[in-house]
């Protein structure tokens, strides 16, 4: 999910004061430590992603937001 999509989804359900920070690049070497990434998918990443993206495939972020103090609008989602 892209950062702006994440923020928009939070606003979409009624959150306010959305803040995104703590940006941290995450690359293939880091991914290889996670047990969910099989050797095959790590290999696939190395093969299909351009070299300059290997150290920055995704970005770790922290997203903060607040529920309004007064009753905000809540969208029903399915």
């Amino acid at each position: 999910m892209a950062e702006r999509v994440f923020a928009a989804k939070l606003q979409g359900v009624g959150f306010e004061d959305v803040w995104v920070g703590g940006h941290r690049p995450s690359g293939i070497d880091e991914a290889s430590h996670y047990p969910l990434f099989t050797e095959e998918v790590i290999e696939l990443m190395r093969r299909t992603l351009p070299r300059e993206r290997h150290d920055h495939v995704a970005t770790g972020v922290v997203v903060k937001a607040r529920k309004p103090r007064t009753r905000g609008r809540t969208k029903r989602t399915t």
Partner: protein
Amino acid sequence: MAKDLMFQNEIKEAVRDAYAGISTGAGETVARWLYSDEELAEVPAGAVAWALGVGNPVRYALLQPGEDVLDVGSGGGIDSILAARRVGPQGSVIGLDILEEMCERGRRHATEAGVNGWTQFRRGEMEDIPLPDGSIDVVISNGVMNLSARKSRALAEIYRVLRPGGRVSMADLTVEGELPPEIANDQSAWAG
């Protein structure tokens, strides 16, 4: 629509099966990138070994003593335990995870950490949180929101259980631009 729901259920099952199948977390190397030495000293070694997150949502949550916290997708419990230390016994922490075995790990680690008196782990799904409206001050989550095929639904559930003025602090990975389709469609890449 029915097809969408089937697809969403397939994704949920694939994610659940993927996490049910692992026998370890990302381990201490990754935990050292995400947490300070002081933070790691606050949690038992088992919780560090089982860390699977991608950031440090507790550090940004500015938790206060007495607050009620929900950790969505709590895994082995590292963030639940850090949160429990900050809110203290006047507060409470609920770790929610789709897998009972993760809840078991969380309970074991919370007991080792001595915070089990005000920390509990419940099996449940972020898209249907088994808590009443307006019962939580702060929701944290770490590496979990991306796993949902129904992200807006999960966020609406988080909104529902928060008290007015309640906060969220969520760590996750974002991707700008396209990934090659072989990677984007790979089940282990989605779950990881």
